[in-house]
């Protein structure tokens, strides 16, 4: 469909800004594996400190890229499926807030004044502008939800008996989850951390951590749902088949709405201050949120099998060999399938982490980044970069630069991640810590803390990291190479849309938000009121500010 110049420009900027920053983000990913393997035995490289680089890597890749993309992709899906555009002024205000926030936080990080990692746990202090920047990025991303909700209500009035398009349902659910969970982190940042970072108050660390993880796990679904929307709506069509069940997609999405938030304490299994019963309850709710992912795994596999059989496959597994893996005219398929293969392992290792006492084996070891690079750097990242190229190239009417390279990028990335994560997870199981400049000590033969048993694990991670870096840079070349090409066709917003194999009739309950929102609120209250009470009652004293390089606290300024 035709869309306005303003919307096109908005989407280009919302894709272009984070992808430019991604160059810095990916570089710091690679450099970490070099330090960790013991090849760099220094506190910094090219004047950038290890932990400063780690902060840049996490904030850019996991927060800035994902948030900008979710907003851009949301604009595209809402416009395409509801046949109306978001309000010009609101969407540009949202963009301006997000960009300002990103610039502030980027300044603080690049100036070395906020080496606090993307979880910014107090009482390790970052510059106030880092916190303010994070808050602006989040608040900016709320605005489109308000606008999209109005677009949806207007559409619904005209189409009372039509099923809400699956992509629209997914986008709205994703941003409702995002709005609810970011309320907690906005409170943490604006009420607890900002005054504290300016030296006006002390901070209850356990409460801040609890509020962070109220947000932190729902965040991973905010990363994931745009990819899920692509898998349900586009993947079956690209594979040459149909979506096995439309209803299954709706059920999965609503289950995410219910269970994405009230599971955050599973990140705090090892924390003090929260009772075991609360931890166990959140562990069980995490199992509940695994169910929509299992449903999705089945539905997508069934859809792909249908596609394979339609293309003439025989036998039980023949369909796997009949899919358009290297078809450069449907390169999105390559990005999706590589992501899904990684997600099999990402999902299973996630269940390990959620499994209560089993968490003792893996918590905060290298296992963890091993796990989440097969989720956020798996299906999420591949869907984001594939769709960014797709949206830009179709909306601008420019052909993709180096199409043959473009279709192999996701496979190369997948191989890189598999090697990288194997190294990290193996290391984690034998005690290798995450978030540590191991080149200085643990992987340095001259140090009395030398751990030679981590040589094979960090070497594997380095090898995987190099492959990932090469694939990542190839994507950067393809994306910006496409940008500088000449326009050869009319630029249109056009998304691949699958038909459903089981296209169930409209069921009222799966086409309404209110009952689900009420249920969501009830579950969150039940799960989080005890956790918040614990964090408040078991905290014995509030903490002053500590700069990363100094064990002596900074005193209050008043």
């Amino acid at each position: 469909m035709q869309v306005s110049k303003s919307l096109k420009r908005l989407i280009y900027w919302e894709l272009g800004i984070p992808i430019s920053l991604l160059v810095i983000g990916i570089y710091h990913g690679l450099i970490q594996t070099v330090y960790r393997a013991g090849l760099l035995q220094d506190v910094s490289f090219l004047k950038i400190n290890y932990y400063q680089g780690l902060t840049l890597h996490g904030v850019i890749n996991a927060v800035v890229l994902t948030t900008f993309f979710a907003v851009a992709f949301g604009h595209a899906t809402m416009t395409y499926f509801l046949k109306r555009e978001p309000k010009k002024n609101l969407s540009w205000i949202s963009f301006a807030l997000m960009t300002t926030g990103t610039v502030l936080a980027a300044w603080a990080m690049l100036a070395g004044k906020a080496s606090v990692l993307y979880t910014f746990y107090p009482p390790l202090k970052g510059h106030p502008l880092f916190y303010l920047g994070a808050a602006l990025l989040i608040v900016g991303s709320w605005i489109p939800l308000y606008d999209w909700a109005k677009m949806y209500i207007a559409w619904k009035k005209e189409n009372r008996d039509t099923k809400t398009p699956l992509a629209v349902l997914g986008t709205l659910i994703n941003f409702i989850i995002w709005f609810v969970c970011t309320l907690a982190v906005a409170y943490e940042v604006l009420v607890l951390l900002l005054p504290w970072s300016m030296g006006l108050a002390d901070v209850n660390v356990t409460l801040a951590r609890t509020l962070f993880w109220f947000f932190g796990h729902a965040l991973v679904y905010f990363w994931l749902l745009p990819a899920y929307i692509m898998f349900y709506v586009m993947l079956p069509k690209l594979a040459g088949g149909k979506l096995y069940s439309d209803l299954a997609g709706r059920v999965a999405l609503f289950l995410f709405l219910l269970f994405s938030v009230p599971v955050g304490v599973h990140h705090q299994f090892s924390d003090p201050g929260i009772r075991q019963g609360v931890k166990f309850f959140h562990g069980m709710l995490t199992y509940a949120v695994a169910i929509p992912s299992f449903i999705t795994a089945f539905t997508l596999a069934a859809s792909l099998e249908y596609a394979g059989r339609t293309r003439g496959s025989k036998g039980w597994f023949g369909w796997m060999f009949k899919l358009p893996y290297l078809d450069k005219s449907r390169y999105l398929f390559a990005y999706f399938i590589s992501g899904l293969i990684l997600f099999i392992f990402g999902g299973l290792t996630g269940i390990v982490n959620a499994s209560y006492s089993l968490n003792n084996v893996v918590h905060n070891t290298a296992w963890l980044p091993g796990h989440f690079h097969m989720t956020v750097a798996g299906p999420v990242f591949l869907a984001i970069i594939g769709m960014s190229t797709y949206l830009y190239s179709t909306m601008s009417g420019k052909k993709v630069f180096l199409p043959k390279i473009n279709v192999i990028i996701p496979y190369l990335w997948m191989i890189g991640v598999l090697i990288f994560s194997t190294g990290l997870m193996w290391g984690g199981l034998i005690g290798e810590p995450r978030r540590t400049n191991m080149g200085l000590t643990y992987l340095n033969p001259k140090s009395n803390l030398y751990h030679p048993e981590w040589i094979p694990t960090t070497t594997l991670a380095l090898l995987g990291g190099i492959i990932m870096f090469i694939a990542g840079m190839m994507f950067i070349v393809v994306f910006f190479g496409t940008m500088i090409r000449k326009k050869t066709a009319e630029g249109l917003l056009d998304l691949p849309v699958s038909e459903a194999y089981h296209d169930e009739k409209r069921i009222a309950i799966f086409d309404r938000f209110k009952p689900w929102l009420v249920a969501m609120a009830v579950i969150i209250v039940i799960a989080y009121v005890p956790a918040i009470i614990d964090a408040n009652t078991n905290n014995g004293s509030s903490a002053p500010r500590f700069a990363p390089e100094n064990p002596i606290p900074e005193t209050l300024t008043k």
Partner: protein
Amino acid sequence: MIKVDPTEKKIVFSTMLLMSVFVFSILYAKEKYRSDVPECVPYNAAYLQPKIDTLDDHLYRVFAVASMWQFEPSDIKIPAGSEVDIYLSSKDVVHGFNIAEKNVNMMAVYGSINKTTVKFDKPGVYTITCHEYCGAGHQFMEGKIVVTASSITKTK
């Protein structure tokens, strides 16, 4: 009522069954091997004084205190076969406390007290790794527990 594909019914059922097996395993391990997540202990500033108490010949109590960038007490020495209650706290930022060989895995958080119990059957040197980023010296922060060949197992 809506018709649901029989394969879909089966997959939802088997998923639930699988998750139930997992839940059962967690509960079973909790009863049989006393595997559990760290406990929540009410705050008391006394825990911030690092020390080792001998409760009886095979029962110890350690007040472990993490700070930028060391674990105290630094010289924990106990005989094999001992059971140790570890109370962990932090004097400053968040630290990690991981004894990988014993699956002891705790966070040291300012203002809160963490607790776990661990039994050291085999003699040896067990390293404690700080696995949470805690500032510039994080990678230097390792502690150890020395478990000596036991006299109590002989006398028993």
